[in-house]
C-alpha cells in the first residue's frame, strides 16, 4: 500500500484518465459558476490518488462528474473521463449504470444521508449484489454477511436486519464501504469518508481502506481536506484551489517541499501534534471566497504572499517541473521557509 517508488505503477496504463474536465453550473437569471476548470489526472491500477482542497475547491464536484452523478439540468460537463479506454461522459446511461457500483464505487462523507433510513442494511447491501452479480435470496444474503464481516462489523447476521439509525457512525460508514466493495470494483472513490467520524474511528476506517485496497488491488481516489489523511495514504496528491489543480506531486515531494504558495500555506496553517508547542501558526490571509476568476489571473493571487504583478495578468499554466506539476509564476523556493 505504501508505495513510495511508484515505478511499477508508472509503467502500467492508467485505469482512469481524466482529461480537461470542466463542470459549469448555470442558473436562470444567475451567474454561471465554473466549479471545475480543466482538471486532468490519471489513476493507475492499484494506485491511491488524493484530491485535496478546501470547501469550494471543486474536489467533490470532480468526483460526482466522474461518476456522472450530477443533475443533467443546469450543469455542463466538458472534457473526457476515460475509464479503461471508454469515455464515461458519453456512454449510454444503461452502460454507465452497469459500471457504477460494479467497476467504480463511491463512498460518501455522511453515511446517514447516503443510506436509506427506512430500509434494513441487509436489503441495501444485497441490492448491489442482485443488481450486478445476479445473486439471489440466500446466496446474496450470505454474501452480504461475509461482506459486513470483512469490513469489521461484529455479528453481521444481526446487523443485516437492522436499520441505519441503529448503527453508530463508524458502523454505518463500514456498511457503506461494504456496499461499495460488494462487486470488487476496480476503482473506489471516497469523498471525505472520515470527516464525519471521530479520530479513533477515522483511524479504523483508514486502516480498513488501506487493507482493502491492498487485498483487492483496487485503485482509490481519496477526496479530503485533511492533509494528515493524505500524507499517510496517498501515492500521488493533487491540490485543488477554486476548481483547478494547482500542484500535483508524489506525497513525499509534496509534503517535503511544497512549491505552490497555497500548498505551503496550508501546511503552515495546520497545527501539528508533533510540532514543538508555541510554534506560531501562519494562517493564509483572507478566505477561500476571495478568489480571482482564473481567466483574469491566478485565483489564489488575492491571498498569496508571493504574488507578482504578472500573477493578475493572465492565467498561470500548469507546468511540469520534474517531480511535480505546478501552476504558479513565483513558486516557493526549494526548502524555503513559508513566508509568514
Amino acid at each position, binding site marked *: 500500500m505504501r508505495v513510495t517508488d511508484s515505478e511499477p505503477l508508472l509503467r502500467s496504463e492508467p485505469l482512469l484518465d481524466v482529461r480537461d474536465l470542466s463542470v459549469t453550473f448555470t442558473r436562470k437569471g444567475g451567474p454561471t459558476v465554473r466549479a471545475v476548470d480543466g482538471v486532468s489526472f490519471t489513476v493507475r491500477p492499484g494506485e491511491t490518488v488524493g484530491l485535496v482542497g*478546501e470547501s469550494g475547491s471543486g474536489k467533490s464536484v470532480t468526483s460526482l462528474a466522474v461518476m456522472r452523478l450530477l443533475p443533467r439540468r443546469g450543469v455542463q460537463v466538458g472534457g473526457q473521463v476515460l475509464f479503461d479506454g471508454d469515455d464515461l461522459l458519453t456512454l449510454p446511461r444503461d452502460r454507465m449504470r452497469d459500471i457504477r457500483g460494479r467497476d467504480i464505487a463511491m463512498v460518501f462523507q455522511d453515511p446517514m444521508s447516503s443510506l436509506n433510513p427506512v430500509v434494513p442494511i441487509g436489503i441495501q447491501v444485497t441490492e448491489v449484489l442482485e443488481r450486478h452479480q445476479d445473486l439471489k435470496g440466500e446466496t446474496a444474503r450470505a454474501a452480504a454477511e461475509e461482506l459486513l464481516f470483512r469490513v469489521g462489523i461484529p455479528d453481521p447476521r444481526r446487523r443485516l436486519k437492522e436499520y441505519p439509525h441503529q448503527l453508530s457512525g*463508524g458502523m454505518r460508514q463500514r456498511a457503506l464501504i461494504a456496499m461499495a466493495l460488494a462487486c470488487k470494483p476496480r476503482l473506489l472513490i471516497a469523498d471525505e469518508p472520515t470527516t464525519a467520524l*471521530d*479520530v479513533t474511528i477515522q*483511524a479504523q476506517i483508514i486502516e480498513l481502506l488501506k487493507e482493502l485496497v491492498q487485498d483487492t488491488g483496487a485503485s482509490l481516489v481519496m477526496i479530503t481536506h485533511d492533509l494528515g489523511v493524505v500524507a499517510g495514504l496517498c501515492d500521488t496528491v493533487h491540490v485543488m484551489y477554486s476548481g483547478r489543480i494547482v500542484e500535483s506531486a508524489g506525497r513525499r515531494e509534496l509534503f517535503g517541499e511544497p512549491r505552490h504558495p497555497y500548498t505551503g500555506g496550508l501546511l503552515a*496553517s495546520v*497545527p501539528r501534534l508533533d510540532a514543538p508547542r508555541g510554534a506560531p501558526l501562519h494562517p493564509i490571509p483572507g*478566505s477561500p471566497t476571495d478568489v480571482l476568476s482564473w481567466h483574469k489571473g491566478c485565483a489564489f493571487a488575492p491571498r498569496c504572499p508571493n504574488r507578482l504583478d504578472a500573477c493578475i495578468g493572465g492565467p498561470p499554466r500548469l507546468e511540469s517541473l520534474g517531480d511535480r506539476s505546478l501552476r504558479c509564476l513565483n513558486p516557493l523556493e526549494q526548502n524555503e521557509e513559508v513566508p509568514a
Partner: protein
Amino acid sequence: MSDQVPAPSAEKRASADVLLSVRGLEVHFPIRSGIVVERQVGSVKAVDGVDLDIPRGATVGLVGESGCGKSTLGRAILRLVEPTAGTVTFGDVDVRALAGEDLRRMRRQMQMVFQDPMASLDPRQNVQSVLSEPLRAHGIGGDHRARVRELLDVVGLPASAANRYPHEFSGGQRQRIGIARAIALEPQLIVADEPVSALDVSIQAQVVNLLEELQDRLGLTYLVIAHDLAVVRHIADVVAVMYLGGLVEQAPSDDLYATPLHPYTKALMSAVPIPDPVVEDTRQRILLQGDLPSPADPPTGCRFHTRCPFRQPTRCAEERPLLRTVAGHADAHRVACHWAEDIEAGRILPAASAVVDPDPVREPDPQPDPAT
C-alpha cells in the same frame, strides 16, 4: 470519582488563582418510559463526576470524542444545562446556588463561543444588533455604536460590517462575530465549544490566533472544548482528556503530549494523522476496537476497559480508577488508570491486534506477547 479528594497541589493552587473550580459535577439526563404514567427507567450519564480547575488567565483544553460529554460539561458549567450533582465555583461564588436575576448577572462573567457560527447567529439580525444585544440585556449604557465598532476592530472586521447580516460573511468572519459577541461584556471566562471545527483549514489558524491574541490583550480565561488534539495542544496550557463522562487524564499540555499515561490518550494521539509522510510511515499506531459504549449503561469499573488494548484481567472491570499522580511525573499530571506505572515502564504491552506497525515489510517481526 465524585467523592474523590483533589490532589493537594490542585487544592493549593485553588486558593491562589483558580478562577473556576468544578467538583464532582454530574449531569444525568433521565430516560422516561410509559404513556399514562411516566416513570424514569434509567439515565444517560453524560457527565459523571468531573473535577476540574481552571486557573485565571490560562487556557484549559477539554478533549474527547463525540458523545463523551465534553459539551455537556461546558454547558453545565455555565448552567445552560442543569447539573444533577456537584459544585461549580466561580471565583468565590457558588454558581449552582444562584437563581433568577443573580444567575443572569453572573453570566456576564461567563460567555460562550459556539461551534457553528451560522446556527448561533440570528440570520435576521444585523451585526450591530447582534453585538449590542448583550449590552442592552445587561443594561450597559453609553454609545453602543462606538462599542460595536471597537469590538469589530478587536476581532479584525471592518467597521462597515456592523450594517451587514450573517449570511453576507464567510465562515471565519462569522466566527469572529461570535467571538466579538462573547467578549462584548468583558467576561472573565469564555467557554469555546469547538470554535474552529466548522471552519476551513486555512481559516482555522486565523481564529486560533485571534483567540490567543484576545487572551493576551484582555486577560481572558478559556475553556476550549474540541475533538482536535492538534488544535487543543496548540492553544491550551492544561489539557483534560474526557471519556464517557469522566476525565481520564489531566496534565500540562507539554507533559501530556510528551508522555501520555492513559491508554485512551495514547490511542487518541496515535490516531491523529500528521501531515508528513515521513512521520506517517514510521510511527506505530494503536487502533481501538469498536465504538464508545452507551453512556446510559456505562461499563463497570474503568469506563475504558471494554476497548482498552492494555486491559488487565484484574481490577479494570471491577474498580473505577480515580485521577491520581504517578511517581516520576509532575503533580499536575494526573491519570485515572490502575496500571499507569506498569504501562509506562513497558511491563504491560498492548494487545498485538491493536498495534499497527508502520512498515508492512516488517510485520513478521515477533510482537512481544501481551502480559496477561
